[in-house]
């Protein structure tokens, strides 16, 4: 019996080392350790062993069983690892295969730029206010110190619906509406569509977008206007961009300023985009004309304010280097997909 046990142990160990898969291992286990297995058969012979030899033999049987079981278990772990590795290897895929194009869409570039602007201005405490696109002449012009037949109206070729209703030429009428209905302090930005009778070409469109800002409070100074626009410029283009104020004229502001930003394309060194000047003209601004305040029912002795406005198309064109303004209204997906 001892021999049988030693024999079976060495045979199984030899077979185990040759086994290649878990299926064969299981077969071997059943053949040896199963109910009808060889080892079990040997155990059945225990009864015939003399009683005095039984303890020693029992110990040996247990040792052999343990050895058999652990050898099988060891083989199972070894084979399991090999098989997992093989499976993983076999499951490898070509990760460079092109995918199906289930992608996000995109906002229109104008919306992206406007979103950024609104984030900047709401962060500075400005409320976003909107107004009608078809507007009374009264709000679009008269309250802004542009009486009928004023030559400055020529600069804003206007679409008329009737004598008193126009397609707004700027978003300033929203400011006029707020000034006539609210008490200072006022701090608003007004984004929206505006209309001017310009033929469509690479740099003009009869429909475009503006955003204008208005602040009215006690003791608002032109320094505050510059501070606000500097903050805006830093947030939009980075800390290297500064503003340059140049005197200008707008009927609704006095003093007025044209504001240039450092050309972000060349960092102010001068390039084709800025016509070599290092500056890009972006904004019109100024201190709200006291006449406008008075016409809107605000005490100009007590309150001062500033206003600014800019074209969003221009910002988008500069930011994305869009070669032709018509791209913005053609809605060609090959253009739109570039903003995904």
């Amino acid at each position, binding site marked *: 019996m001892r021999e049988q046990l030693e024999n079976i142990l060495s045979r199984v160990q030899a077979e185990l080392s040759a086994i290649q898969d878990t299926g064969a291992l299981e077969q071997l286990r059943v053949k040896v350790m199963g109910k009808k297995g060889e080892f079990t058969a040997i155990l059945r012979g225990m009864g015939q062993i003399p009683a005095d030899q039984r303890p020693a033999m029992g110990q040996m049987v247990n040792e052999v069983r343990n050895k058999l079981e652990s050898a099988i278990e060891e083989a199972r772990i070894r084979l399991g690892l090999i098989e997992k590795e093989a499976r993983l290897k076999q499951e490898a895929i070509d990760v460079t295969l092109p995918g199906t194009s289930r992608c*996000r*869409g995109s906002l229109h570039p*104008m919306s992206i730029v406007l979103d950024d602007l609104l984030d900047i201005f709401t962060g500075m405490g400005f409320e976003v*206010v909107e107004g009608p696109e078809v507007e009374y002449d009264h709000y679009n012009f008269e309250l802004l110190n542009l009486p009928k037949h004023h030559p400055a109206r020529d600069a804003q070729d206007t679409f*008329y619906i009737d004598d008193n209703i126009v397609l707004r030429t700027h978003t300033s009428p929203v400011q006029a509406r707020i000034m006539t209905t609210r008490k200072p302090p006022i701090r608003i930005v007004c984004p929206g569509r505006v209309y001017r009778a310009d033929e469509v070409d690479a740099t003009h469109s009869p429909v475009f977008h503006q955003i204008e800002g208005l602040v009215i409070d006690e003791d608002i100074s032109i320094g505050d206007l510059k501070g606000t626009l500097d903050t805006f410029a830093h947030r939009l283009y980075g800390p290297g961009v500064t503003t340059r104020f140049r*005197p200008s004229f707008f009927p609704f502001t006095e*003093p007025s300023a044209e504001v240039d930003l450092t050309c972000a394309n060349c960092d102010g060194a001068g390039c084709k985009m800025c016509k070599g000047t290092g500056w890009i003209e972006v904004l019109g601004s100024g201190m709200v004309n006291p006449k406008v305040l008075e016409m809107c029912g605000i005490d100009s002795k007590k309150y001062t304010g500033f206003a600014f406005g800019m074209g969003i198309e221009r910002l988008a064109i500069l930011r994305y280097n869009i070669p032709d303004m018509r791209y*913005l209204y053609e809605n060609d997906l090959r253009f739109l997909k570039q903003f995904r």
Partner: protein
Amino acid sequence: MKVPMKWLKEYVDIKMSAQEYADRMVMSGTGVESVDEVGGDFDGVVAGKVLTCDAHPDSDHLHVCTVDVGGETPLTIVCGAPNVAAGQTVPVALVGATLPGGIKIKKGKLRGVESSGMICSGPELGLPQGLYPHVGEEGILVIAENVAPGSDAKEIFGLDDVAVDFEILANRPDCLSIWGLARESSAVLEEHCLMPEIVVEENGTGTFLDYAHVEVRDKELCPRYCARVIEGVKIGPSPKWMRAYLHAAGVRPINNIVDITNYVMLETGHPMHAFDLDKVRDHTIVVRRAEQGETLKTLDGKEHLLTTDMLVIADSKSATGLAGIMGGEESEILEDTRAVLFECAVFDRTNNRLTSRALGVRTEASGRFERGVCVEDTMEALERACMLVNMLECGKVVPGIFDSCPEPKEREPILGSVERINRLISTNLSGEQMEDILCRLYIETTCCGDTLTALPPPWRGDIETEADLAEEVLRLNGYEHIPSTLMHGVTMAGFRGQRQVLSDRIKDCMVGMGWFEIMNFSFISPRWLEKLGLEAMDKRLCPVVVRNPLGEDTSVMRTSMVPSMLSSLSVNLNRGINEGKLFELAPVFFPEEEGELPEERQTLCLGLYGDDIDFYGLRDACACLLNPFGIEVDTVSGGDAYYHPGRKALLIAEGKRIGQLGEIHPDTAEEFDIEGKRVYVAELDIVEFGVLIKPIPQVKTLPKYPAVARDLALVMREETSVGPVIATIRKAAGKVLEDVGLFDIYRGAQVEANSKSVAFNLSFRAVDRTLTEAEISRVMDKVLKAVESVHGARIRS
């Protein structure tokens, strides 16, 4: 306003380069378009003296000349012009010179004779008409002056100058003149400004009234009219310096009298007019409104029909000119003119503008009048013209003037507070400093304590208030010194408006689902609306009309987003892009009562085409968009005629119609150049949408008890819509039915003809217990009874 630097420097000392000067002007508020050499298009051309001129041995028309161009040895030049002769001084383009059109002069042989340069004609040098005598004629240009050989030709023709093209702001018409710019420049540069002393020698015979009679009938439209008569006029070219200035300023020299009027206009800002008195009937000039139906032929040969709103200059019989806009043909200055009446007047800017617009005539003069011409210095400008007549000796100034002048207005001083101005413009200037700045600008200012008392000069009509004074102070103190400060005062909450927030959420949702935002013009062609095949009474066929559109295709405000969307889809389709998922969020416009603003209704429009795309894909997109807002939407068959009759539906939420969707009718698609591809469109009314938005959803506790699933296959008639069946199932099952989904529709041998088997999976769950088999069976029975009675559907055996 093009300003020759030499002209400007006669009145103000400018010590820097033209470019530096231009930069200074820009930073103080006078815009500059460009700084250019007047120069002409040529280089390397000098004066040459023709020493000898012989016929070319091998040619019947060429000449071989020796020309002294100031060098050690004369040049040999072959010249083809018939008028070349020994003794002439001529312009010579040396070897290496460039001529207009980029022509380069090289050494060459002409029929065997070496030629080192080219003798030039006026046209070859690109010299403008009137700049120099005979300049426009063929043949070489003979230089009349006695100039040394080798002198620069640009100098000879007065082209050696730089012109700054200023962009004058609407509020500064005074700067549309050399004098105005000289004054402005002197203030900016802190240099002295020296204006000429105007002295007129009245050397003519008789008096004004002997020659002319002037009558101003409408003093409102013509607040000032000054006139002088020149007799013994000798028409001829004006002197070189005047021609050069005019040319550099962009005005073509014509003859001495006309040149004087143009010169004075540029110098003083006052448009002038010269009448040939002999052609003015009865020597009478009347300033009056036109008679209704009166006609007038202007200098440009155009005939105009006038109205009584228009101001004309007339003689005793009829209108001869449009006041302040353009003169008439009849009294034009010509070679034989002997007596001239100079007019220097001011016309009402609004009236001038309206007339000029109505007749479509815009001239340099009308442009100036509509921006505003100073009334006070009108006489000075006229006297300047007469002084030039004296100088040029081209006529004799008749003693006496005509001046129709308004009562001089008492000029009101403007009061300003030094402290308030400092606060507004973020400066810390003393009253004396402000006083100094304002005085530099000819604003007579005194400072007493905090109060500035300022009297602007007559030409600065734009200065009316303290804010205007503040701007002048800030401008000359330098905008570059504005500090960057932060607003103080109350803190304010910044936020987006409700509509903005909703529109952002909608757009984000669409983008997340893979759609692309587009933007179209808000105005469209009315024909686009007609193409939709709407019923005659549909309000979308009555859009808001733009009175002065750019063209028919942008003449009405859109009442529907669909045409623009179809056009965008068409653009992409026809450019070979095989899938499109577009959306646009914008208002549509509907007219209100006369005089009221139209209604602007925010609308979302979706447009879709591509492979693997159908009606359900579009419907699901709409549902996906609405769900996050807590809006459950149903579709019922129906919709506008531009949709496919069998593939269109209304979107209903809480019993309200919030939009429609469907496949576009092939006829409509074709109208928009869409062929060979099905396109789908959805329209959603954002106003209705906004109303239905649910407040912030409250969380439901997660279920503790298991769900029980049941499948149910129902056989129903083909025409039965599945949607209502599901609604019936829900209603019958009550609240233990957690969910019901469709998993199969079968048509074929297993069911009878004209029927379909629709399979649903139902999921039941109770919040407080595990449902028993018996309970579910009872519910299933109810469901079966209900679908049978409502839809005639039976369980599939």
